[in-house]
């Protein structure tokens, strides 16, 4: 779950990471009011899209009236498909240099990794490898001052800035660990005459650990259908085609889409309903798919932890209750395969054992429809 900048900065503040003084406002008048308290300000759209600055979501204002106008513009602006409900009005910081600092997960090292660069700002992706220091942290040791000194040596940093880093990095690491962050990024990290200040905040919380953080608001920037899918714990992505696809497992779902394309079709979605022995999950997945009004339905089940009979049962049940009249291509093999096939046969549904056949049949059904 990505956090809005102002929520990320709330966390920073809680972990003693300096942030500019600011106010979260919900209309242009409040923005003017905030500016009258703060003086020269920066007005920032609170949306989750990247490249917000380049797209015009950030303005400077040197008077309350300018702040009001800037906020008005931003509240009416669409950024990456979203409009802002909130705007952050912050005291303008005199930046001497823009640095970059992040903590994220290094999957290969199986460790948190610190990323630090003296070349922060808009184009940090283009910083050459030798100017972006990476330091994987052993979680049994934690981020110790000596590691920061070593990072500073590699950066050529000494003196006061090194002291600032020695204070700041362990705090960001603590936030990263305790708040179950996947990413805690400060770009730019502003070097000012008062020391380092987090001029931006990109914090992503691990969805799987959200239950440990009931105090965090739940942020949803998704389509209604995707929200519904998330609620049902289904991995669902809308695509452009006509063949609705449902499978169990991300890899095989991807492979099914690949094969649909291979046979000349176009998938309407990616839907991995995961697995499990529960009849509810596939039923809900089917109901969700039917709501999208696809022209053909392709179901690809290779039972493992998922049992074929349970999926067949779910299909038969939804078919009866909702009435499925669109063409269906059903593939069913694996755990409890014969029980599943029997259920489908009773419901008058023919099923395939081969994925190839099921997919090419689905494309044929589309062409025929």
């Amino acid at each position, binding site marked *: 779950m990505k956090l809005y900048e102002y929520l990320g900065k709330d966390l920073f503040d809680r972990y003693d990471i300096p942030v500019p003084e600011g106010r979260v406002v919900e209309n242009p008048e409040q923005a003017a009011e905030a500016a009258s308290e703060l003086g020269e300000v920066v007005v920032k759209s609170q949306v989750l899209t990247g490249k917000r600055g380049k797209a015009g979501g950030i303005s400077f204002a040197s008077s309350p009236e300018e702040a009001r106008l800037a906020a008005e513009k931003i509240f009416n602006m669409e950024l990456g498909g979203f409009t802002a409900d909130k705007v952050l009005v912050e005291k303008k910081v005199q930046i001497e240099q823009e640095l970059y600092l992040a903590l994220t*997960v290094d*999957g*290969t090292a*199986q*460790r*948190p990794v610190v990323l630090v660069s003296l070349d922060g700002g808009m184009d940090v*992706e283009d910083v050459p490898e030798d100017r972006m220091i990476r330091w994987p942290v*052993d*979680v*049994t040791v934690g981020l110790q001052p000596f590691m920061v000194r070593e990072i500073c040596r590699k950066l050529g940093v000494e003196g006061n800035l090194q002291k600032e880093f020695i204070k700041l990095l362990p705090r960001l690491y603590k936030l990263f*660990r305790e708040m*179950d962050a*996947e990413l805690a990024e400060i770009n730019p990290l502003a070097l000012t005459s008062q020391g380092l200040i987090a001029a931006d905040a990109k914090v992503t919380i*691990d969805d*799987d*650990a959200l*239950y*440990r953080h009931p105090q965090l608001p739940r942020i949803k920037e998704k389509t209604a259908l995707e929200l519904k899918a998330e609620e049902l714990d289904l*991995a669902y*992505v809308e*695509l452009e085609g006509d063949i609705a696809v449902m*499978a*169990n*497992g*991300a*890899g*095989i*779902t*991807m*492979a099914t*889409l*690949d*094969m*649909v*394309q*291979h046979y000349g079709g176009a*998938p309407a979605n*990616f839907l*991995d309903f*995961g*697995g*499990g*022995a529960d009849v509810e999950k596939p039923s809900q997945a089917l109901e969700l798919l039917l709501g999208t009004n696809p022209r053909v339905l392709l179901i690809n089940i*290779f*039972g*493992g*932890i*998922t049992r074929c009979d349970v999926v067949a049962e779910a299909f038969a049940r939804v078919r009866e209750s909702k009435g499925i009249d669109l063409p269906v291509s059903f593939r069913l*093999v*694996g*755990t409890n395969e014969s029980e599943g096939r029997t259920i489908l046969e009773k419901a008058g549904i023919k099923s395939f054992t*081969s*994925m*190839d056949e099921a997919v090419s049949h689905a494309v044929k059904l589309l062409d025929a429809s």
Partner: protein
Amino acid sequence: MSIYINDKTRVLVQGMTGNQGSFHTGQMLAYGTRIVGGVSPGKGGQSVEGVPVYNTVFEAVEKEPADASILFIPAPFAKDAALEALAAGIKILVLIPEHIPLQDAMDIMAQARQNNAVVVGPNTFGLVSSGASKIGIMPNQYFIPGPVGVVSRSGTLCYEIVGHLTENGVGTTTVVGLGGDRVVGLHFIDVLEEFEKDSDTRAVVLVGEIGGSAEEEAAAFIKSSMSKPVIAYLAGKSAPPGKRMGHAGAIIERGRGTFESKVEALTEAGVKVADLPTKVPALVKEVTDGK
């Protein structure tokens, strides 16, 4: 033959009394796995499929020494159960659950490194030494002995491919599911290294997908250190960039980890990449026949 496990591997099932735990205990026993005990706190003294259940891993290994443990434990409690297994001396840990928090996964891996233990998963189907021992949740019937080692990031897609191999009369030595999470214990190169050493494995099938850089790292390893032929299948050719497709790893980020970059790296390393799952058996036969 096999890597990591064999017919002598003594296996514990943590979370044995739950729905999944008891079902797959039965399945694993049916496959021939040597399950020596189950652990379910508060359920000690019960038994599942004739296997005794203990309250703690320590109690279980006091009664019956064990080499491996498979976890059917809800994600919020998986870290504790994994650390318990490691503390009690388990050297092969198979983490079935999905949705284990990332920070927990990193804590588990740190302790596994300290204890020189192998972690398979999390969010994996497990691993199987074909015909000898299955520590996982894959359907029994497709895993028959043969000359091919299989390693995969995804579960069902791996069954699909092993299923095709089986239909074509090609069996497997060991099949390993790495798991779909961002932090997992084994990576392609760990398993490839074992297959290279395993005298019974004559060819390897690698089942990858878009996102991350594991396939590119595998390609580099294959090029530098493998003598055995490798066949690959990669999912995600049709995936639109930037869309999240279930697995946390399967995100196309910043142009790296694309379908094209992976195919290129593998091809360059001498790996034959199948364009459909169904085409894997023919490619495998090409490199194993007559050898």
